[in-house]
């Protein structure tokens, strides 16, 4: 399955894994036992990141030239499609943004 598969439920233009991404400047991450809470002060959206690898991935995005590079470095091969969809979901909610 490609990362731009329709089942991602996010228009492909909204999340391009080949671009550089970062935690949105208006988002605060708070570590929790299950992963982290993400709160967007602009949209007032609250999201649960329910996996430590996902929290580590999101936190490290700005150290990589693209989301794809971050995923390849931090996520095992058989889980990359799932984590790519998770990033697409976070992009849709503006937890992460391209820069």
């Amino acid at each position, binding site marked *: 399955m490609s990362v731009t598969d329709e*089942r991602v439920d996010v228009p492909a233009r909204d999340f391009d894994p080949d671009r550089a991404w970062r935690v949105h400047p208006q988002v605060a991450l708070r570590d929790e036992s299950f992963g982290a809470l993400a709160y967007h002060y602009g949209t007032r*959206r609250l*999201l*649960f*990141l329910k996996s430590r690898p996902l929290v580590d991935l999101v936190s490290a995005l700005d150290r990589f030239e693209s989301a794809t590079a971050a995923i390849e470095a931090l996520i095992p091969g058989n889980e990359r499609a*799932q*984590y790519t*969809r*998770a990033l697409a*979901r976070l992009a849709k909610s503006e937890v992460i943004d391209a820069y």
Partner: protein
Amino acid sequence: MLLSEDQEVQDAEALTEDEVDELLVEEVSIDGMCGVY
């Protein structure tokens, strides 16, 4: 007769990709919490 382990495997396979994705990210609406304050 299914062993419990077999049943768990079947349950995992029955999950759709969307449901699996929900295991990673879940959005919560906090609009209804305004009255709390």
